[in-house]
């Protein structure tokens, strides 16, 4: 039985092929999920990849969250399905209220295209189960609106329940509490600004993203087995 990972595509998404490539080299099957169809086709995990869905018009992810596919993604996520939002995908998940908070313009008002060092803060998530707490991973960032913000109560709750998944070692964008990625209470929905698919091969400069994608494939495998 082959594990299937769905990769959502909105008009303006541009990272779907890289995500497919990086996941397929780990042995899972992938398929694209077009934004206009309210279905996840029964995949075992969903990735909402990076890019500029709807041109980032109005606000990043603001329009994408209302696409038909997001209804199905919401159902998949609420049923415990592994769901990962990368960069623009993280922004979409926040706008869709599958994750709390919001992503704002970088504090330095510069578009950042650089390697970032991320510290893994918890392994109780669909994206970090194969990593170790304290691991420092080198993973590229590529964003203008990566500055995570939420209210103090949400921040306190996430800190207390270990829902902050990654912190920047050297905060590049002013994110609250150096947050680079978070998860929901159950740990099956994870959003992060850095691109693990761009750190999936030493030829790319780092393969530190592989442990994260392997965790996702493991979570998808677990789900496929569960639902058989």
């Amino acid at each position, binding site marked *: 039985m082959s594990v299937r990972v769905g990769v959502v595509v909105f008009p303006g998404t541009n990272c779907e092929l890289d995500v497919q490539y990086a996941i397929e080299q780990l042995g899972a099957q992938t398929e694209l999920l077009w934004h206009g169809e309210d279905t996840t086709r029964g995949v075992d995990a969903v990735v909402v990849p990076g890019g500029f869905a709807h041109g980032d018009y109005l606000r990043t992810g603001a329009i994408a969250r209302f696409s038909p596919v997001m209804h199905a993604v919401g159902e998949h996520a609420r049923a415990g399905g592994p769901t990962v939002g990368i960069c623009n995908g993280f922004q979409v998940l926040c*706008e869709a209220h599958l994750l709390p908070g919001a992503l704002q313009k970088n504090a330095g*008002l510069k578009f950042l295209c650089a390697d970032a060092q991320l510290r893994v803060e918890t392994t109780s998530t669909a994206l970090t189960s194969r990593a170790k707490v304290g691991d420092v991973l080198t993973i590229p960032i590529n964003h203008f609106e990566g500055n995570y913000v939420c209210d103090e109560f949400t921040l306190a709750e996430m800190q207390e329940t270990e829902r902050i998944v990654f912190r920047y070692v050297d905060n590049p964008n002013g994110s609250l509490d150096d947050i680079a990625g978070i998860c929901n209470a159950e740990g099956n929905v994870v959003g992060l600004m850095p691109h693990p698919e761009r750190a999936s091969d030493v030829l790319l400069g780092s393969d530190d993203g592989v442990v994260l994608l392997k965790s996702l494939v493991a979570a998808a495998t677990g789900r496929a087995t569960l639902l058989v």
Partner: protein
Amino acid sequence: MPVFEAHVEVTHLPGIADPAGATVERALPALGYTNVAQVHIGKTIRLTVDAPDAEAARAQVNEMCERLLANPVIEAYEVVIT
């Protein structure tokens, strides 16, 4: 049904960083304006809406703000109906 014009202003919530506003505030002294403070950059959305009366128009535009036009996590909005 009458047509109403709505003018929506979306701004950052107080306490939320506004780097664009801060940048403009820092740039103005270089042009000779040293007496300016509290610069905030927001966005304006104008639209028309068919509604039975101004109250109904306002209620609908408020709802549109809550759902799409603004993100209440980080933004505040003001609606003017004419």
